[in-house]
């Protein structure tokens, strides 16, 4: 575990030793701010109208927080390939992979460390968004439970993206190739159920199940369904498993 933490800490520090971490967090905050502001403005306009009719109330959770968190998944789609592209590709280019692979640590520890490092950066990004929610709590009274589940969902979904990105990065020495391939795969996972209506009901269910975003809906609504939790966790485990295999096969091939 100490080895895992040592790797994770180095990963996280590496994001902030270069501008990457700051740029990433900055743009994430900018986009999140935008995705937050648009439903907020709409909500404000609506509540003005509602002022005339005191019998009805608007739900902040449904109108602002839900849509904002849904849209946040779009930011991941674009930013995460840039987070994961360097994880393995850069180690290979710098030759530091030789240090890691000849140290008394297992491949799994290295991969878990890198995964945790990336998750930690993502958690930093999410932590920043709590400011926006704080504003809602000051001026309104949203329910906190759907917020917690929403963030849990975001974290799990982000973990899936990161594990795929880690795997793709382990396949190449070239960061650009890693980023492009990761982006393509993310997008594919995103839209895989679009074809649903043309492939028959069975296939449609399968594809809908595979789509990363469909599983997020319940989290945004405040429901923790074990089905979705298990889906995300097994997705992450599978991504990390592929990474272990890829690193191992790279060793054999030399």
């Amino acid at each position, binding site marked *: 575990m100490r080895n895992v933490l040592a790797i994770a800490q180095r990963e996280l520090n*590496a994001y902030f030793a270069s501008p990457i971490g700051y740029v990433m967090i900055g743009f994430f905050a900018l986009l999140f701010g935008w995705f937050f502001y648009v439903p907020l403005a709409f909500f404000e306009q609506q509540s003005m109208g509602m002022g005339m009719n005191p019998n009805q109330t608007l739900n902040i959770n449904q109108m602002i927080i839900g849509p904002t968190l849904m849209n946040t998944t779009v930011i991941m789609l674009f930013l995460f390939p840039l987070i994961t592209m360097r994880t393995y590709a850069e180690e290979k280019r710098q030759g*530091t992979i030789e*240090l890691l692979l000849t140290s008394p640590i297992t491949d799994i520890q290295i991969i878990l460390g890198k995964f945790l490092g990336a998750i930690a950066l993502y958690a930093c990004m999410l932590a920043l968004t709590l400011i926006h929610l704080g504003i809602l709590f000051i001026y309104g009274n949203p329910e906190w439970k759907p917020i917690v589940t929403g963030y849990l969902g975001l974290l799990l979904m982000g973990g899936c993206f990161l594990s795929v990105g880690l795997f793709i990065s382990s396949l190449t020495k070239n960061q650009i190739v890693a980023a492009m391939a990761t982006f393509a795969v993310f997008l594919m996972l995103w839209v895989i159920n679009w074809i649903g209506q043309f492939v028959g009901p069975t296939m449609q269910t399968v594809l809908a199940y595979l789509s990363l975003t469909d599983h997020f809906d319940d989290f945004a609504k405040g429901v923790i369904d074990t089905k979705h939790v298990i889906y995300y966790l097994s997705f992450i485990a599978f991504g990390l498993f592929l990474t272990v295999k890829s690193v191992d096969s790279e060793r054999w091939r030399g």
Partner: protein
Amino acid sequence: MIEVQHLSKRYGPVKAVDDVSFRAEAGEILGFLGPNGAGKTTTMRIITGYMPATEGKASVAGFDVFDHPLEAKKRTGYLPETPPLYPDMTVREYLNFVAKIKGIRADIRGQVDAVMKKTWVSDMGHRHCGKLSKGYKQRVGLAQALIHNPDVLVLDEPTAGLDPKQIIETRQLIRALAGSHTIILSTHILPEVSQTCQRVVIINKGKVVAIDTPEALTDQLRGAQSLIVQAQGPAEDIQRALQNVTGVTRVAVSETRDLTGTYQVDSDSGVDIRREVAATVVRGGWGLLELRPSRLSLEDVFLKLMTEENTEAAPPASETTESTEGANA
């Protein structure tokens, strides 16, 4: 301490290492000598557990690197050809990180300080690794390999790219480390081997060509003896006269300036021709300026081994040039 048995490594159809066996005793410095592309790095990568072998076994301090990788790696320090540094980290941060993943739990700070002192990088603790000069990078690389005080040190071309002063310092450091560590050092620089190593493994095209002490290798390969004679007089006459001395197989004129010529006189081994050669020159009335046995340097030995290997396999000319390049680099 290090034992390598019948090691082979294939990259697809290419056999990079072919049935290599050798051992290094505790406290010894073993030189690993060969032209570029001979399989030195591959062998070292297998010993350090970076990659598995296709066939054969390697063990470090009694632990098989494939069956017990963690135990073997704990006892091995490895400096790859390019020092594995993270350019964004400072030297101290980097060494702290390495200490952690090498399994040091107590007094990391003390260990880092000690190793920085040992490798003369104490004054660079706050410098970023990416901004170091080549010489310092190499030293930090060495510090990284030494930090967990391993039994075995594997150094891949530790002096490559250093300036002459740094080369001498690094060699001193390596010699000082022997005894408490077993060291395998690869190089294609020949004097390095005779200066630092107790034994040499010469490897070419993935195969071990010779294993012995540097001195024994030079002796063994001298075979036919030869004398260097410097004499004053007409070159043709002298050459003809020397040719007639009993036991002489070949006389070559290597240099002539004015009337002074330098001749290389080869003879059958076991025949001492010095007396006769001297007498012949004096009898001819030429001035005998110098007469000395010629010694084959390790460089000659290396080239000779490489060429023997080459004639056996009758390779294209390009490969001959390659080994010559490797020897001279």
